[in-house]
C-alpha cells in the first residue's frame, strides 16, 4: 500500500521537476545582466533583452493590486463578518464562481469595455483584467482567514464597549493578518503568470512604456508566447530565459508565503 502511495507522489512531482529542469537548462545560458535591461532585438539579435517585458509585468500586476487588494479585502471582510445575510450568501457564491473563471473570457470582457472604447491597448486595461482574476482569490482567502479568528475574541472586544467596526478593524483583522497577506501574495503570483487576458488588453511591445493608458505594454508571459512560437532559435532561447525569470519570481513569491507563515506560527496557533 505504501509503495502505491509513494509511486503516486513521485508521478505527481515528476512533471514539475522535469519542467523546472528543462527551463533551467535551456534558459540559464541566456541570462546575463543585459538580458534584464536591454530592449528586445531582432529575431537573430543575441544582445536583445526582455527589460520592457519585466517592467510591463511589474507595472500591470501593480495596477491590478491597486484595484484588487482593497476590493478583495473589503469583500472578504463582508463575507466573514456578515455571513448570515442573504446578500452575503449570494455574492459569496458568485465570488467563488469567479475564482476559477476562464481568463480568456475575462480578457475578452475587458477588451470590449476598455480597449474597444478607448481604441488603445494599455497597461491599465491589462492591469484591470488581472485584477478581475485577483479579486476573487483575495476575497476568498481573506474570508477564510477571518473566519478562523475565534468568535470569543469578537465577543471579548464588544463586551469592553468597543463598537463593531473597530472590533473588526483592530482585533479581527489584526489577528488574521497573516492569512490576509498570504492571500495577497498568492493572488500576485497567480496574476504574474497569466497570459490570455493580457493578449487581448495589453498586447505586446518592444519598448518601455511612457504612458499607462494609450500604449500596448509588454509582459513576460506574452513575450514567452510570442518568442517561443516564432521559429527563430535566438528568440526561442530568449523565451526560455524569460520563462526561467518567471519561474524564479513565482518560486520566490511562494517561498515568501511559506516563510511568513512559518515565522508567525506561534501567533497563528490560536485556541
Amino acid at each position, binding site marked *: 500500500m505504501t509503495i502505491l502511495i509513494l509511486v503516486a507522489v513521485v508521478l505527481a512531482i515528476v512533471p514539475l521537476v522535469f519542467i523546472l529542469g528543462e527551463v533551467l537548462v535551456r534558459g540559464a545560458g541566456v541570462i546575463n545582466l543585459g538580458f534584464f535591461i536591454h530592449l528586445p532585438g531582432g529575431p537573430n539579435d543575441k544582445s536583445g533583452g526582455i527589460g520592457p517585458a519585466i517592467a510591463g509585468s511589474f507595472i500591470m500586476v501593480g495596477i491590478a493590486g491597486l484595484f484588487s487588494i482593497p476590493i478583495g479585502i473589503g469583500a472578504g471582510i463582508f463575507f466573514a463578518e456578515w455571513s448570515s445575510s442573504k446578500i452575503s450568501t449570494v455574492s459569496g457564491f458568485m465570488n467563488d464562481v469567479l475564482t476559477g473563471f476562464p481568463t480568456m473570457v475575462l480578457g475578452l470582457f475587458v477588451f470590449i469595455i476598455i480597449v474597444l472604447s478607448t481604441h488603445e491597448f494599455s497597461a491599465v486595461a491589462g492591469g484591470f483584467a488581472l485584477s478581475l482574476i485577483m479579486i476573487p482569490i483575495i476575497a476568498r482567502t481573506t474570508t477564510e482567514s477571518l473566519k478562523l479568528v*475565534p468568535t470569543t*475574541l469578537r465577543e471579548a472586544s*464588544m463586551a*469592553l464597549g468597543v463598537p463593531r467596526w473597530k472590533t473588526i478593524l483592530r*482585533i479581527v483583522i489584526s489577528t488574521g493578518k497573516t492569512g490576509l497577506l498570504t492571500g495577497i501574495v498568492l493572488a500576485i503570483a497567480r496574476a504574474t503568470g497569466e497570459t490570455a487576458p493580457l493578449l487581448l488588453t495589453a498586447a505586446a511591445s518592444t519598448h518601455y512604456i511612457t504612458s499607462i493608458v494609450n500604449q500596448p505594454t509588454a509582459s513576460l508571459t506574452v513575450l514567452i508566447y510570442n518568442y517561443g512560437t516564432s521559429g527563430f532559435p535566438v528568440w526561442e532561447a530568449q523565451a526560455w530565459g524569460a520563462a526561467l525569470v518567471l519561474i524564479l519570481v513565482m518560486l520566490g513569491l511562494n517561498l515568501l508565503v511559506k516563510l511568513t507563515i512559518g515565522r508567525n506560527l506561534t501567533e497563528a496557533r490560536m485556541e
Partner: protein
Amino acid sequence: MTKLSKRFIELPPAKVETINLRATYGKVQALKGINIKFPENQVTAVMGPSGCGKSTLIRCLNRIHELTPGAKVEGQVILDGLNIYDPKVDPVVIRKRIGMVFQKPNPFPTMSIYDNAVAGLKLNGLRDKKKLDELAEKSLRMAFLWDEVKGDLKKPGTALSGGQQQRLCIARALAVEPEIILMDEPCSALDPIATAKVEESIFQLKKEFTVIIVTHNLQQAARISDYTAFMYLGKLEEFGETTTVFEKPQSELTEKYITGKFG
C-alpha cells in the same frame, strides 16, 4: 412561581434588575420570563443544571446575547432606572458599564500583557500614557496578577498560563471601570490553584463592583457568593441569601440540585 427567601424585603438596593426577561436562540426559548433583582455591591451566584439558561441570562445583561445570529431578547433590563433595551439606548455604552469575563480565557493574541489590560481604554481612544499606566497597574493588582507580571509587561498576553490569562481578562474587564462585572463560569477551565487565586480576587471586587457569577460549582457558590439564584429550564426557581438557599431551600428542585440528585 419563584420561591423567595423570607428575608427578601431586606435586600440591599438592586443595581440591575430584569422584568419579564425572555430570550430565544432561533426557535428555542432559553429564558421564559425572568424577574430578578441583583443587589448592589454583592456577589450573586447564578446556578443550575446545564441548559437552564444561566449563561443566556447574564449575556442578556450586557446585550451580548443579541450578537449571536438568530438570537432575540424581549422584556426589560433596568440599570439605575434605565431600561437598557430601550431603542434609544446605545448597546456600546451599556457594555462599558457592564463588563464580562468569559468561560475560556480569551486575551487578545496580538497584544502584550499591558496592551491587553488597557485594551478597552486604548481601543476607545484613551492616549494619556500616565493614565493608562495607572489603570493598568490598578486593574492588574485588583486581579491579583500584578506581582506576577510587573517584571515584563511587554510579553504577549498569550504567553501566560491559563490561570494567569483568566486573571488578565479580569483585569481587562476591570480597567474600563464598569459598575457590574459578569462572569460566565470563569474558573471552569482552570486548575484548583488558579481557581483559588481568581476567587480571591472576586472576593475583593464586591467592594467596588456588583458581581454576578454563573457557576456550576456548588462549593464555589457557597464560598464566594452573598446571594444565589437557582435556575431550571429557563425559569428562576429560587433566589435568596446564599446561606439560606443552601441550608433551608424553599423549593424541592433547589434542594435536589444542591444535594446532588441531578445536574
